[in-house]
């Protein structure tokens, strides 16, 4: 396993005017599970293919454990990859599939068998070892594809390209859990590309979010939740995402309309206020809002909690709170003054 350092990586497809990736910097510690998050067309698959050595960057460098691998092929870099759809060798049985990368690298049959058994035990695949791929479910096939990616003990990094896409929804979590278990147990460095925030937040030690070929933010899942660096991140993470409403700063305080919501140390002027639905409450004090709907999502200590949607001017805000009897049509929104996040020009404004 290896640490990865990516510097100023840019890529442009032949004939394209725009850069698909523009100056990406990335740092992965040895044994880190790193998720690349982003919508479609944000360049995340391109980044993965650059790491895999399938594409050559226009600019920038990739280092594995300090060794520059930018010009090397994927096989020379010693990476393994899991794809959106299970990629297996149809004419080989499951054992044959799993030992394929080992045998190609000169392992003896005996040593390869032993290693295959280890990996199979780890992924709970032992019962399938003699089967042919044709009769297996998508879940089982993808598990085998993952097994093949993990079978080489010396692999520098395991790259996963939306590996849960093709799997039946009911078995997604099982596969994710299996993946997370082996990742931790074997201390693998993994790069996991996904458009699904839940997958990223639950799987990764660190997340990098891409947008239009640039990095919006790199950080732990908690940082993504609590301190999004960009409005797009703020909105993308969470369900529903962070509320983003127009506000302005004057006299050292943040105002929504003419009501002050708390002190900030920013220069006066317009800005965007961000707060999670969990960080606010609709009740009897604060900014006047019109409640649109409430939806119960569960109970806490016998009290119903849920999601409240309300209009603030022409913007919609959500809160997650106890659903008391005081939720009149005309209510007021109180935002936790300690957790205000201010965005200017889309970026988070650090006021501390």
């Amino acid at each position, binding site marked *: 396993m290896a640490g990865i350092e990516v510097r100023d990586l840019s890529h442009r497809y032949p004939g394209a005017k725009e850069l698909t990736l523009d100056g990406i910097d990335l740092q992965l510690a040895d044994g880190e599970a790193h998720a690349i998050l982003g919508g479609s067309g944000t360049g995340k*698959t*391109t980044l993965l*293919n650059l790491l895999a050595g*399938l*594409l050559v960057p226009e600019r920038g460098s990739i280092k594995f454990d300090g060794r520059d691998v930018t010009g090397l092929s994927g096989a020379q870099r010693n990476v393994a990859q899991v794809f959106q759809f299970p990629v297996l060798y149809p004419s080989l049985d499951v054992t044959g599939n799993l030992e394929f990368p080992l045998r190609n690298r000169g392992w003896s049959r005996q040593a390869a068998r032993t290693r295959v058994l280890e990996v199979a035990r780890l992924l709970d695949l032992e019962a399938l070892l003699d089967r042919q791929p044709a009769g297996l479910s998508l879940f089982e096939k993808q598990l085998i594809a993952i097994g093949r990616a993990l079978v080489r003990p010396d692999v520098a990094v395991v790259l996963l390209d939306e590996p849960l896409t093709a799997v039946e929804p009911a078995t997604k979590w099982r596969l994710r859990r299996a993946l997370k278990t082996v990742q931790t147990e074997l201390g693998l460095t993994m790069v996991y590309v996904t458009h699904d925030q839940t997958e990223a937040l639950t799987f990764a030690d660190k997340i990098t979010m891409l947008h239009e070929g640039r990095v919006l933010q790199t950080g732990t899942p908690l940082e993504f939740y609590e301190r999004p660096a960009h409005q797009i991140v703020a909105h993308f993470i969470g369900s529903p995402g962070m509320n983003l409403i127009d506000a302005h700063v004057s006299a050292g305080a943040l105002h929504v309309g003419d009501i002050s919501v708390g002190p900030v140390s920013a220069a006066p002027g317009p800005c965007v206020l961000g707060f999670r639905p969990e960080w606010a409450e609709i009740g009897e004090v604060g900014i006047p809002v019109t409640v649109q709907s409430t939806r119960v999502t569960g109970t806490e200590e016998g009290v119903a909690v849920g999601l409240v949607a309300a209009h603030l001017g022409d913007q919609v805000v959500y809160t997650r709170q106890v659903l008391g009897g005081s939720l009149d049509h005309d209510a007021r929104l109180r935002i936790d003054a300690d957790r205000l996040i201010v965005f200017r020009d889309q970026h988070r404004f650090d006021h501390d």
Partner: protein
Amino acid sequence: MVDPVDDRRKAHWSLYVYCVYLLLPLYWLVGMALKTNQDIVGKFEVVPGNPTLANFAEIFTNPVWYQAFGNSLTYVTINTILSVAVALPAAYAFSRYRFLGDRQLFFWLLTNRMAPPAVFLLPFFQLYSAVGLFDTSIAVAVAHCLFTVPLAVWILEGFMSSVPRELDEMAQVDGHSFGYFFFRLFIPVIRGGIGVTVFFCFMFSWVELLIARTLTASEAKPIVVVMTRTVSASGLDWGVLAAAGVLTIVPGLAVVWFVRRHLVRGFAMGRV
């Protein structure tokens, strides 16, 4: 989408060698078409010394030739349309359902290509005479279905199997009738497959000689048959024959041109 590595594979040098092998006889055909009979049989020349368009002029001015050309196009077109029309529902059934004897049926369809024409020609002649279709384009078109239909079923089935079943289910959920689904939603999705099928039907029907010759006399005589009868007083008229040969390639090329993109993209074939 991202298409890395292997998709941009360059042509291997051996391909060029094969293309030369492919082109030389074709070059010779074109060369013959531009020569007089005396020059063809009389001497060896790599480049025609006295190129002439007389052979082509003969074809374009002689009604026997250009009508035969029209006859061929007629039955090939009928055959292609008929093959695709009957193969579409069958291919759909093969790709979406299992049914009693499906694989055997498919093999039976194929066996009809295996009848050696030499003796089957007489019964063919008798059959089509009995139903009053002798010497019509329809007779040739229907007879050629023997070998175009199995291929059409197979190709279309391959394309249909690569269309996810969810499309059918979605249409059902959306409340579309089967007819609407099949013609307005499904057929557009597999139009590439239809293009490829058209090419193969066209090809096998266009080049066939024995059945076409047996089932026609004068009215519907196709170009391949006229070509076998280009015997003049001085023997075979090589030049005109070569010119006709060159012209017979043209309609096929037009069809390939239209389906080239679908051929490039390829088709995932499910069934054997």
